[in-house]
């Protein structure tokens, strides 16, 4: 596995999942959700790119599992980051 490929697949996976979080109605990272359709579209595209990159590097089960774990992790952490930023916003 080429390290750059690993890096790019992870990066696009994290970015894609994060954009989908920003597109979700309950996101708190941004004060106002801006163009959710665009973020959702770009996010989905990035997630698919990430999956495709992983599939090119690993066995199919391994690639799908890695991809899912990455997305699960980002979506688990995202609400906490969003709530933290929302809290800081109300303070200032």
């Amino acid at each position: 596995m080429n390290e750059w490929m690993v890096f790019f697949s992870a990066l696009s996976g994290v970015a894609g999942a994060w954009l989908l979080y920003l597109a979700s109605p309950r996101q708190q990272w941004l004060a106002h959700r801006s163009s959710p359709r665009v973020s959702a579209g770009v996010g989905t595209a990035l997630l698919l790119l990430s999956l495709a990159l992983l599939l090119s590097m690993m066995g199919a089960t391994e690639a799908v599992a890695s991809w899912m774990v990455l997305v699960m992790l980002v979506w688990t952490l995202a609400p906490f980051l969003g709530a933290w930023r929302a809290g800081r916003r109300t303070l200032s």
Partner: protein
Amino acid sequence: MKIRNDIIKVYKDVHIWVGIISGLMLFIAFYAGAITMFEKPLERWATPPSALAPPPPIERTEALLQAVFASHPQAAKHYLVVVRPSAEAPARVIWREPGKTRREFTEYGASFAADGSLQVEKLAKAPVAQLVDTLHQLVGLPFPDAVARQIMGAVALMYAVALVSGLIIVLPTLVKDFLALRIGKNIKRMWMDVHNALGIVSLPFHLVMALTSVVFAFHTPFYAVQEKVVYPHGLPWGQHEPAPLPGPDEYPLPADALLRSVEAQLPGFEVYSFIFREDQGQLEASVTGLDVRHGTRGRTQASTHLNPYTGEVDPHDLPGRMESWDAAVNAFFMLHFGSYGGNAMRWLYLVMGLAGALLFYTGNLLWIESRRRKQRDGLVPAQKRSAQVLGCLTVGVSLGCVIGISATLAATKWLPGRVDDVALWHQGLYYAFFAAAVAWAFARGAARGADELLRLAALASLLVPLGSLAGVWGIGGTWNHPGAGFAVDAVALAAVPVFLMLARYTRKRMADGHTDSVWSTAGGSADPAAEGADARAVT
């Protein structure tokens, strides 16, 4: 999605009860399991330096083997050639001598001293990584394996029920509240959101863990029942064709030739070691290693047969080259162990594991919060006994596990040479701190106990890298392997401010939060004497 209210109600009760019963054991399983993701680095970090001379190059393996067999003929029965010797396997050649029982054995390693003479050392692989793994496997229970494993299986089944019942409960609001986390005045709402944030998205991960754990606990009885009920001629394991007998002029290839041969046949497969067994004059071999593109059913490595006379690998046991049934079963193991994708995946699994531990912790907090007796007419009511007990138990067991693991890790570099049975001491230290933490939580109440135990956890974690630091100067028999295991010290050090921060939040809540709560020193119990009485009644 609409679900009838009465169904939700029933599954809420189911969820609460399986959660209360299994939650704390699952916390331990997940916390220890997260650490077990780095079992090998931990073992390396924890193993005292070997007195053996640096291993000879792999090209000189044959000479070393001849010297070993000449002085220790029993070694020829079962030995290992290590490709890259490291702290936990510090010799080029390692062999096992059987102990009293089949599972017991002693490992020896050999090297050449500077003058060319044979050196043999009884290897002392650190037992502490195994202790953490055992805590993980037996959900922290101090019972014999046979007993604890059955309980673990029951816990795994309850865990599966908790997952499905939890899903049923949130289904009606799933879409509306997806990824929501409302932090505000409503503390119950907040814990509910936190619990959901940790549990809903990672449901596939948790389902895999629950269902695989059921098999890890019960596979022996499962097979036994199926053998009786399903199969007409016993369990079919398939036949392996016996390896062809070597010709009279065929000799086993030297290790370096085997290594070249395997590397040519399996590109991307990093070879860890070759294992040899002698059976009636014929040598059988297998090769262990890992190709991070494919997960394995072993926790840390894959292994497959190898013809030691020709160097030909039999790939049908290798992930990525298996037949479909084997590949499916391999996938179940791999998804539990996170044995794919190398260290990157191991870090992700570690965070997922810690998030899982928090899932169970917040479940208990939610239970306590929903049973809070609220303040009325300026009177602060005494909180329910059950909420107080669960508060103390949650704090004591979770932080007890955290402190116990940190403390026993902190002792790692000081124990060898001072005590006879290092493994027993590690175990004793863990359970001593664990039991003391639980007792402390009951004696001090959930709120004060959490604050104090979190600070103790910070201290215990700080002591972990201090042992390695002492090892840099070789103080008191400690050691530090340069490079290897730095991550262990770094993670322990990083945990220190986290625990301190959590302790600060706990104190803040004690001071500023609701007084009508088990998390307040005022509301935790009406008066300290009653609290003491409660503690005695429970412990």
